[in-house]
């Protein structure tokens, strides 16, 4: 798609409130964790029983695990229904739903309406290509190989320093603007996302 104007990262992230968003790709979990860290108030995290629960220790650099309300449902339908209930109640700042299958337009639109009614942001973690057209934005996130990948394998002792992980976040659907992609990293000390470069801008 030809891009005429570059899209500002700050205009699309942090995610727009009271809207339903979708994320897919290998780095989707980190995207959700960062969104949870930037949201206000409690975070409701809905997932299915058969999926392992997100690891709170891994969440720690991004978001305080104590803010999470972990909800375990037995089917995708119940995940969607619980997410809708949580959105509508307006008690949480962000509702994250982990889905394993595709959702239709009806489900997506219901979540969007619930998010508007409760003034709560919804974020669905989906497999690639399983989203619905009702979402406000859809992101594809992937980790970037380290810069030295091509030259040679590096072995280093364990470090506890700042995370140098980089992700490529591509905005692949945007209801109110153009698409773009960015290389981003997480600054745990400042608790914010840093944009390294505008990859596709």
């Amino acid at each position, binding site marked *: 798609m030809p891009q005429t104007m570059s899209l500002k990262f700050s205009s699309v992230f942090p995610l727009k409130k009271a809207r339903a968003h979708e994320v897919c790709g*290998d*780095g*989707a*979990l*980190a*995207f959700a*964790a960062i969104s949870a860290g930037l949201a206000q*108030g*409690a975070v*409701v995290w809905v997932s299915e029983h058969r999926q*392992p*629960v*997100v*690891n*709170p*220790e*891994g*969440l*720690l*650099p991004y978001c*305080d*695990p*104590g*803010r*999470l*309300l*972990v*909800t*375990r*449902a*037995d089917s995708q339908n*119940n995940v969607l*229904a*619980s997410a809708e*209930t*949580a959105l509508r*109640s*307006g*008690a*949480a700042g962000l509702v994250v739903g982990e889905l394993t299958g595709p959702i239709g337009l009806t489900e997506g639109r219901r979540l969007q309406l619930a998010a508007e009614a409760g003034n709560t942001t919804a974020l669905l973690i989906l497999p690639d290509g399983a989203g619905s057209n009702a979402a406000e934005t859809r992101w594809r*996130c*992937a*980790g*970037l*190989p*380290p810069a*030295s*990948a*091509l030259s040679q*394998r*590096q*072995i*280093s*002792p*364990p*470090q*506890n320093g700042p*995370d140098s*992980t980089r992700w490529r976040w591509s905005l692949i659907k945007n209801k109110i603007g153009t698409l773009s992609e960015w290389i981003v990293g997480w600054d745990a000390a400042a608790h914010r996302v840093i944009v390294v470069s505008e990859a596709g801008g």
Partner: protein
Amino acid sequence: MQRRIVSLWFPRLAAERVLRAHPVDAPFALTLTERNSERIHDLCPRAESFGLQRGMTLVHARSFCPGLLTRPADPDADQRFLRLLARWATRYCPWVGLDGRDGLFLDITGSAHLLGGEAPLLDDIRARLARAGLSARLGLAGTPGAAWALARFAEGIAPPGESLSRLGPLPLSALRLADQTCTSLERLGIATVSDLHNLPRATVARRYDADVLRRLDQALGATGEQISPLQEAPGFAVRLTLPDPIGLLDDVMAGTRRLTGHLCAQLDKAQKGARMLRLTLRRVDQESQAVELRLARPMRDPERIAALFERGVGAVDAGYGIDMIRLEAVEIEALGMRQLDRAQNREKDSLDDLVTQLGNRLGLENILRFQPVDSHIPERSFTLVPAAGSPPAPAWPSRRRRPLRLFAPEPVIASGSGVRQGGEPPPRFRWRGRSLTTAQAEGPERITPAWWENDDSWRGGLRDYWRVETGEGRRLWLFHTPQAPRAPGWYVQGEFA
């Protein structure tokens, strides 16, 4: 005011309780296994007419009466039934106590006139119990002891001051004495209460234990005797009976709202909060459906409780209409006064409501919170506790970097230029059907198993964990088991997204 006591004795409480539920037209008895054989616990008058009696073995009884129908006795249920009767008896007076396993004491002092006097009161009790299928024997006197004696041996009323004249001719066992004592007194020719009363007190006190005189004094009113009223567990329930059946959701919810208002007023007075509520909707065809509501936190706010019922009530099939709604607080907890109008409280309230709503759909055990656990084993360093009633973890301890997702270890197929022993991660490996290359690796971080715990997944001994950044972009948490009993191998246990 002169004390007046009614003693109520149910001679066939156990048998009649069962017969009420399962009427039979045959000699009937309850059996209980005692002293290694099945014995008759209680029986109906028809069975008694065959010469059966309590304590007889069942085999013996069957030889008298081959057509005897029996059921196993349930003494605990009988006691519950007696408590129920005690609660019913509070319609006559507020002060009702249990008397042994088959009797009640009613302290009707000052309340007999409500039913037109003592005789009409006894008649009323007798008539109501007869209608319920219970035979009862009643005695009314100035003391529990005298009332007890009258109920067992000479039904009737002893007017104030006439206890002795009414009790005098009764046998000694009317004094609630042990059988042995009665026999021994009877051998001396002392057969009735008046005989005992006429003896010099000093001689009786010297020869018999103190119980004899104490029982006599209690019966005649010289010594006081307390009746302990039952402590009634506070019950919180309200009911709405409708003249015409209703069926629309809005109507039922309006009724529910009215009930929650009343119930919450009751709870408020007692400083309690409901933890679990049951709304029973009875339909015209006598079917009843219950909607249960488990709350994340004790609550007595009528508006919020009514709102939480909405989903459950919507699922009820009203059939031809609902004519009775009953709301009961099944589980209650103490809930003190609380300051209401603070923003922080409101936020917490709405989160608790959300826990309740989600819990009603998925079960409260599925709404969880993370709590840190002091363990160096990565998969055991946290636990999930139900969010209802548990505060969030105050501060999470900061540890080493851990993956965002942990899963059960998955073996990888290492390939590439010679897998070095106990060494560094393989340069190339296959995992979940993808071939990946190691671009950067951080490690090792050695974690030894908790030897004091017997964990099958840690059979392989200690693990060297590596944080591997692959050339394909995924960041995995690999470990190597250098001490594994079989071949040491590489496994993936988590993924840093």
